[in-house]
């Protein structure tokens, strides 16, 4: 187990370096001049040169990367926004809880729908439920999150008026300057974004879980359990479920990255002040440090989450833990 953890930590560090190098190269190599952007309105060439020196943009790229990495590791700093000079770390810290609420809440929603439906579909293949689930899957796979979000917002928020149309409320009550706060308002404002995620992902997961459960049910050890005299419920709970959830856990780890991408659309539609929404505005404003900061943070989040999933997997599967 210790070996496994050490190996995973080294792998995570390696992944982080690769991801940041690529991000850094892409964003600092594109043909926009960060110095000109940062120097303010109508700068003189001298101004631009001064700003360039100040931002170390006159250094070779590997030194810039090293500075970026050094600032990140030594001071935990991601630099400052070109647009409003605020610390990128502060901005990301503001946005991250919103995106986390959206993605993890969404994951809870899509799993709590797809696990029971997937299992029931596997137990009764070709039944009415299975066919309805299949239809649902097709819609979920085909539809774009923006479309799903807009339709939900229009029907439930605008026409029926039972949910907010858009907007976000802080989870912790008493946030200064906020219109609304507290867990109930928080959940009330996130319900449609969560459902958007649910429609988007539950579809795939229903099929995935259905296929895994069906495959596991035809395993030899399930026949062994029946031959021992175990009842169907016991066979499902003790022998089928844990084994069939192993691949689901892996896919879940990978899909968190995908969900962060989906958050860009969902946050835009529902006007949630999260990382995705601000990534779009930062990109539109050529606010390169903020873009890099958000990408770095998202990369880190995906790495950490994948690491957690791997650890969870090792706990679930003794073959990994003990090998």
């Amino acid at each position, binding site marked *: 187990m210790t070996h496994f953890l050490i190996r995973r930590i080294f792998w995570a560090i390696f992944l982080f370096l690769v991801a940041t190098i690529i991000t850094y190269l892409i964003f600092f190599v594109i043909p926009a001049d960060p110095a000109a952007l940062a120097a303010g309105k109508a700068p003189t060439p001298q101004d631009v040169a001064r700003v360039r020196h100040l931002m170390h943009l006159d250094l070779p790229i590997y030194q810039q990367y090293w500075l970026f990495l050094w600032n990140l590791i030594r001071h935990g700093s991601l630099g400052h926004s070109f647009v409003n000079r605020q610390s990128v770390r502060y901005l990301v810290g503001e946005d991250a809880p919103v995106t986390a609420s959206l993605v993890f809440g969404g994951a809870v929603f899509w799993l709590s729908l797809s696990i029971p439906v997937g299992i029931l579909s596997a137990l009764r293949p070709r039944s009415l439920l299975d066919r309805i689930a299949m239809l649902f899957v097709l819609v979920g796979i085909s539809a774009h999150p923006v479309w799903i979000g807009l339709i939900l917002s229009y029907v439930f928020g605008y026409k029926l008026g039972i949910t907010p149309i858009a907007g976000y409320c802080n989870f912790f009550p008493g946030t200064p300057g906020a219109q609304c706060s507290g867990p109930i308002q928080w959940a009330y404002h996130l319900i449609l974004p969560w459902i958007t995620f649910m429609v988007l992902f539950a579809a795939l997961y229903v099929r995935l879980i259905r296929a895994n459960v069906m495959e596991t049910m035809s395993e030899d050890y399930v026949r062994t359990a029946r031959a021992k*005299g175990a009842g169907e419920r*016991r066979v499902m709970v003790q022998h089928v479920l844990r084994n069939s959830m192993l691949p689901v856990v892996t896919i879940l780890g990978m899909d968190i990255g995908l969900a962060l991408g989906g958050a860009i659309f969902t946050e835009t539609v529902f006007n949630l002040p999260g990382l995705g929404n601000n990534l779009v505005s930062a990109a539109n404003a050529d606010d390169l440090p903020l873009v890099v900061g958000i990408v770095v943070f998202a990369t880190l989040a995906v790495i950490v989450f994948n690491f957690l999933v791997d650890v969870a997997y090792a706990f679930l599967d*003794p073959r990994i833990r*003990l090998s």
Partner: protein
Amino acid sequence: MALLEVKDLRTSFRTDDGVVKAVSGVDFALERGQTLGVVGESGSGKSVTFLTLMGLVDPRHAMVSGSVLFDGEEILGAKTSRLREIRGARIGMIFQDPMTSLNPVKRIGWQLEEAVLLHNDVTRSEARKRAVEILKQVEIPRADQRIDDYPHQFSGGMRQRVMIAMALINNPEILIADEPTTALDVTTQAQILRLMKRLQDEFQMAIVMITHDLGVVAELADDVLVMYGGRVVEQASVDDLFAKPEMPYTWGLLGSLPRLNLIAARLEQIPGQPPSLLHPPSGCAFHPRCEFVMDVCRQELPELRPALGDETHRFRCHLDDEARARIWDAKRAKLVTEDVAA
């Protein structure tokens, strides 16, 4: 009264291509403490016969008929709850592939304890004690430590010992062993067979040994069923079967046995493929591969009839007594000359 009496057992499966007749009328009886060898190639219906009588075929696809009396009680079509009381308690079962027959995410001990707890009103610690005890009986070294291991920490032979332990943990009256040694290497096979023989004496149980290996049958069985195309084609005591087999398929099986004293000779093989169960051949299912085929074989299924002067030795073949005796004598003479020459 026999411990297990099977009459006209039939199992077919609905598939997308049509109905597959896996078992088409099997009769046999098993006495207490007896060992029955069931021989046949893949698809002969030997495994399905016993999965059916244990109620382990999927009821959504399988159609089952006939009668299975276990200790005088009809268990074919019995309630699942009744079958569950019998499975694992009075009839134990082990399977071909020990590598996949144990749950990979549960400890060995947990899986053994489960078998005890399903049928006995005991505490988990009592079940654990029983599990350690049975692991010792199947000769697992350091059983009290290894009980906390996971299946992947055991070798194939060791896993099959665990499977045997799990099947025997509740002292069953019958052990159904479905090709228990097929997936193991030869030295391990011999160990497992020796173990089963010893345990049979200790536990006083009947064994059904499903196999395609006549060597295993010769080693363990009292009586033998030879199955082909979903039917019993010959049944006899093991001595009679090896001394005087009565039908061409059995001749072929015996002829294809490898013999250690023959070095250069090629193994004889039965030409052709096992019959399709979706579109079985007309008449005798073996006729397309039989070197002595006659017109009647293509039209009529031969009855399972007793051999000359031996009511317990039964077989299916249209060849008359004289022809069969002549052919077998010639075949045996050839086998013996080869042995002598070697």
